[in-house]
């Protein structure tokens, strides 16, 4: 099927089989390998991307379902000027990553939530962190990173 994926504001005209999952289309057809596959059953969340602003497991969605819908991946997280997103800074500052394999999923999950509600509270962040898996950090640094980014985000908006 001929579709166009719009990823990080760039159009990717593709000819894909209906069965092709979004994660594979992003990684192999668009060359955006920052999205990782950790379980291919929707549990671990490493493949989380934003589809129309919503955080989704890209291993559970077909590419054809996303024809014409705006998609954001970790490659599109930094600003147009290359300025890192507050989440990217915060993950580094709080040591929210070690091997980095699960990281893009957590980043996109948090980015989607922050964009919807910049005033994310403790409980919302706890629920967010609890929806993906990480085997290195023990999660607490990820929670701190998202809280810090939410703070920075708010301060940035006020400034």
């Amino acid at each position, binding site marked *: 099927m001929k579709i166009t994926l719009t990823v990080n504001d760039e159009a990717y005209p593709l000819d894909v089989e209906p069965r092709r999952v979004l994660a594979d289309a992003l990684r192999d057809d668009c060359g955006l*390998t920052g999205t990782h596959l*950790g379980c291919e059953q929707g549990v671990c969340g490493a493949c989380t991307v934003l589809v129309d602003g919503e955080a989704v497991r890209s291993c559970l969605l077909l590419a054809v379902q996303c024809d014409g819908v705006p998609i954001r991946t970790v490659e599109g997280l930094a600003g147009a000027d290359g300025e890192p997103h507050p989440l990217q800074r915060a993950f*580094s500052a709080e040591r929210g990553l*070690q091997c*980095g394999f699960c990281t893009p999923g957590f980043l996109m999950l948090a980015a989607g939530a922050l964009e919807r509600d910049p005033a994310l509270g403790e409980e919302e962040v706890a629920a967010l962190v609890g929806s993906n898996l990480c*085997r*290195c950090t023990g999660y607490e640094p990820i929670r701190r990173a998202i809280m810090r980014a939410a703070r920075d985000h708010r301060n940035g908006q006020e400034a």
Partner: protein
Amino acid sequence: MVDRWLRREDERLLTGAGRFVADLRVPGCLDAVFVRSEVAHGVLREADCSAARETPGVAGAWSAADLPGLPPMPDTRQGEATREWPSLVKNRVRYPGEALAVVLGDDRYRAEDGAGRVLVRIDPLPAVVTAEEAAGDEVRLFDGLSNVALHGEAGQPIDDEVWERAAVVVESDYRQQLLMPSPMECRTILCVPEGDRLTVWSGHQAPHRLRSDLARLLGRPEKSIRVVVPDTGGAFGSKSAVFPEFIVVAWLAERLGRPVRWIEDRRESLLVATRGRGQDQHVRLAADADGRLVAYELTVEADVGAYPHLGVAFPMQTAWMATGPYTTPQVHATVRSVLTNTMMTYPYRGAGRPEATSPLERTMDVLARRLDLDPAELRRRNLIPPEQFPYRTPTGRVYDSGDHLAALDLALRTLDYDGWRAEQARRRADPGALPVGVGLSCYVERSGGERGSLHDYVGVEAGEDGGVVARCGASSSGQSHATVFPALVAETLGVDPARVRLVEGDTDELPGGVGSFGSRSAQIDGAGLQHAATLLIEEARERAARMWDLPVEETAWSDGAVHPVRGTAAMGLSELVKRTGPLRIDERYEADMAFPFGTHAAVVEVDPDLGTVRVLRLVAVDDCGRALDPAVVRGQAFGSVVQGLGQALYEGVPFGDDGVPVLGNGLLDYLLPTYAEIPPIELGETRTPTPRTPLGAKGAGESGCIGTPPAIVNAVADALRLDHPDRLQMPLTPDVVWRAAA
């Protein structure tokens, strides 16, 4: 914006620019998919790939019968090749998921289409999945051979009289359940043949070992193979060997002259990745009336999986560490390694030490109850005091250094031990309150490796441009080597860390290497890099002395430059290299093993009616000697505690009657801890540098898997006031706890 990223690894990993093996794009690369056995044990009657070969996009499909020259798995045991582990099943399936055939396709979808059309017929045999079942040899994995593949012991047998005379003897049985290491990235290999060279990309802990294994298996010179480890998504022990699938992929890539890769998926991983632990244990612990330990006996029945090739002797690690941190004068540990119809047991974070710590620490708590002593006091009376180091244990270890009492005291203070005991007493007096329990666990681990792997290649080179290259045989899978090692070399040389970069994980770039496992990288490679940098300084001073016609003692080194002791004319490294030629140190650095230690403590609240356990507090006090980067060490310690929490409460591999793991729903069945399960965790450190290297670093990062599980289980037993702890076997699911409480 120098300070934007705390680690050098961070920018690429946070922007999607990391490069894991599955991210590499090689034109014409074929994807390998394995057809796997759905039975645990059986006779393979047929694996017909003909329909698979007709599938569009399939480049080829083979069973063992189609690949007569395919080499089997290497056998690390000397002179014992009677139990062959074929890379594809020839006639007998011995573990569920064992590979029966391989299909190569233009992409994963095509290869899976083909794999679905391979016709397989297996006549099932009865399966044995525990060491106890298998040891009886009613079902044999190899005809004519016993399932018992190894007997081993550490220490001397203890006379009956000792047990008879002791004031108290506690006996108990424990199960150290099978665990899946579960790095977020499963195993990977990409083999690219070009001319007479084969480049192998793999997320791997020991690239040089993988190269030598593949060279031997493929019958080609080591130099013709290059192994490169790009970004690796965690390992925890599970990525340090060569695996059957690796052999098939490398063999086919070479034979077809085409790039081939295998990207393991989670479903496969849960079936056929190496697993950790897997021991049934019996202990006897004797003490005098004052609670001084007299004798300890540990009997291990180890489930080593279907083939003894790589993991058979590994449970000896538990035997050698059986003494733990106590002055027990007599300790005897015996090991029986038994083949079972499961994928092989292999090191997983902690690797042998959790299995040694758990039975001892759980039994210490029973002994304390028996003696009516506070468990902290019992430990205090028996911990090896600092002045007794180096300490030779009855099980053959020589502990380098330690201050176990300091770690225990710090853990108790950090926890507010007395406060929680008071709260416990309060709740016990209140019939409406849920019980709380406090659990302790004192541990000692071994880091660096065993004899024969206590060395690594290290090197430091100064360039004309002022840059410094550090090289070592370690291989990072998330441990921040690219940040930590350059900082250490920079500190030693007195230069800006930004000038130093690390090269590791590429056999073409390094004269040799051992790898990263057994908490060895900081201890061996770190000390080695410091040593190499020191040698570079010496060489620089000698060259400067010759140039300036001074005795070498008249030269000095500071801030990255050599200068005459009298005078101020300093010469930096880049100038020195320009004047005197390349300046490069290459060393094989060797050091002895070290013994990190610590105390972990847990407070839990148990609902006896529901069997649920709520961890209220975890404290982990670890001593890894000098921490190269304390924040990196703490990060690993924290993650490790959470993996320990996983073993204590959630993770396990249940088997059906047919011997197949009941993990059909993947990570919905194998329960890795999520953030929802994380209790308040507080870390503490004591610092006892190892005297065995000038650097003083001991291994770090495995402590939580070792110290935390028994602390939690002891806390649950304490809350329930259990006299017979063997009713509590990990993981402490609500069902297990409810039954124990009943």
